């Protein structure tokens, strides 16, 4: 936010490069904006103002010496699930309220290496489990478009921070829609790369076979710039994939003539709001005007099973990943007993919130003796079918287009008592994680002032095509340029 206007990464880069503005000025302006509005939005768990200004000073020195990357000196917000050396990383959980990582995540090393500036750590659903940020142990983040509504989740703080002009871009993580659904709710651009494209080293694990880090930005061009910076093979993540990373900005040609785009019927689920259906159909018509060949009758018949597959696999992996919180090595620790087992049980009773407990219970049950075959193994097999189905469809189509979320942002408190209703919020994004595909959510309209998002899904490691389609759409629409008034 500079002189009342929010800059994109590429705009800020131009100003920095031509020395019309310094990184210190940009960073101070962002910190002022946070100071002014975060009491209302509550997107941020920890503001790292001093550090940000120090990093900005260094960035200005880099720029002065001619050493400038598109992200150098640009202030960003980081989801509080990504480890930042020496800076509290809480996962918005009481369990990690005072946890200070002794090392940086790979994405942070990459950003630090090119002189990026970190403004702070963004609020989220506890351990990234949720779709509204209401599961944060600290506070609920508010949607900048309507403060009485949720920003989506789990990366709600990261999405709201960009939507509210508190940061120029941010990082989030996406296990079942945790980048795309809040991007849709906050009317920003949110990208989940292919599983294996961005290193998960230093991303606090929720469901290891589904988690992926990605950016929130104000447009597709900026998403390409952040992806360029954070993608790539990393030996410290054994599921990272060693294939070349293209320059993603090169694919943004605006030309999608002759491109084959499929619209899978199953994604227009029962109960989807009519305003969402209408906005997405209108958006797809725009792609057709641009010369894309649209097939409205694509079918992915196993889609209705994706939600059940996800809510078996993700909690199962979570129950194993979260076994590490035992009150011994780090984190909250119950001390008021001499019994080791009691200490461990009480540590987890008081350290975890209700949704995290629910998922640990669900996962433990699905993996327990006698139920493993019926639940976990069955889910893994249906996962294969879902993945194969996508593979087949992608032989005929270059990309798929769907709504991101079945609804516009809902009211705070509306779904907290009914876990299944909350889970349904991710029905259009979950299949993508199950198959490990790249997908983006971009602003595609409003209904009575509330944002609607469109999802574009691509082949594994074909981020370029996803970005190309989304970018072409943004050349002929201006939904992504609208800003929440705060």
């Amino acid at each position: 936010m500079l002189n009342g206007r929010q800059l994109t990464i590429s705009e800020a880069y131009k100003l920095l490069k031509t020395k019309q503005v310094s990184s210190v000025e940009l960073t101070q302006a962002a910190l002022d904006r946070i100071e002014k509005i975060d009491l209302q939005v509550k997107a941020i768990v920890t503001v790292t103002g001093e550090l940000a200004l120090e990093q900005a000073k260094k960035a200005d020195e880099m720029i002065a010496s001619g050493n400038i990357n598109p992200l150098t000196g640009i202030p960003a917000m980081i989801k509080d699930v990504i480890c930042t050396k020496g800076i509290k990383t809480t996962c918005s959980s009481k369990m990690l309220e005072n946890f200070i990582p002794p090392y940086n995540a790979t994405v942070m090393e990459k950003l630090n290496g090119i002189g990026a500036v970190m403004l702070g750590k963004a609020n989220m659903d506890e351990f990234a489990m949720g779709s509204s940020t209401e599961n944060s142990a600290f506070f609920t983040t508010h949607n900048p478009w309507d403060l009485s509504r949720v920003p989506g989740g789990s990366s709600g703080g990261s999405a709201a921070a960009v939507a509210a002009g508190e940061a120029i871009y941010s990082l989030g993580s996406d296990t079942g829609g945790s980048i795309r659904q809040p991007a849709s709710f906050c009317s920003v651009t949110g990208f989940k790369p292919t599983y294996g494209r961005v290193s998960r080293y230093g991303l606090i694990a929720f469901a290891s076979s589904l988690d992926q880090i990605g950016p929130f930005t104000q447009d597709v061009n900026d998403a390409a710039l952040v992806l360029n910076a954070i993608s790539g093979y990393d030996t410290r993540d054994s599921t990272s994939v060693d294939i070349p990373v293209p320059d993603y900005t090169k694919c943004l040609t605006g030309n999608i003539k002759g491109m084959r785009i499929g619209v899978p019927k199953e994604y227009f689920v029962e109960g989807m709001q009519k305003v969402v259906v209408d906005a997405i159909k209108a958006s797809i018509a725009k792609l057709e005007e641009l010369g894309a060949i649209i097939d409205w009758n694509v079918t992915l018949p196993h889609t209705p099973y994706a939600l059940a597959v996800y809510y078996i696999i993700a909690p199962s992996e979570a129950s194993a990943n979260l076994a590490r919180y035992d009150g011994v090595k780090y984190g909250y620790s119950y001390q008021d007993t001499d019994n080791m087992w009691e200490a461990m049980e009480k540590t987890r009773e008081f350290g975890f919130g209700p949704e995290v407990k629910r998922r640990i219970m669900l996962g433990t049950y699905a993996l327990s003796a006698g139920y493993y075959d019926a639940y976990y193994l069955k889910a893994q097999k249906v996962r294969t079918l879902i993945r194969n189905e996508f593979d087949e469809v992608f032989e005929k189509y270059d990309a798929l287009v769907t709504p991101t979320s079945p609804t516009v942002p809902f009211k705070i408190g509306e779904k907290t008592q009914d876990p299944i209703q909350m889970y349904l919020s991710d029905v259009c994004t979950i299949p993508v994680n199950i198959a490990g595909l790249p997908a983006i959510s971009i602003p595609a309209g409003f209904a009575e002032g509330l944002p609607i998002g469109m999802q574009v899904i691509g082949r594994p490691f074909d981020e370029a095509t996803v970005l190309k389609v989304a970018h072409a759409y943004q050349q002929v629409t201006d939904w992504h340029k609208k800003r929440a008034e705060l």
Partner: protein
Amino acid sequence: MKLSREQVLHIARLAKLGLTQDEVDRMGEQLSNILENFEVLQNVDTTCVTPTAQPNALKNVLKDDVVKPSLTQDEVLGNAPQRDGDFFRVKVVLE
């Protein structure tokens, strides 16, 4: 299927997860509802389908055996709730 109170307590014990009375009651009902929604999977024919553990075909990651600096003991122990010299302090394991 409906989870009994005993089943809920059994799973909680496996997960080393303490639950309040209230949570035990609520969890039984909520988990039962969620599990009921999973039943749809039984309609899918998965004969001869191999399970997917993660989406990409992967090979083993091998590293050369090179000595590199690691975290210092102070860094590793920095977040320990109870520290005793260069050790994590734990409750009595064997009485």
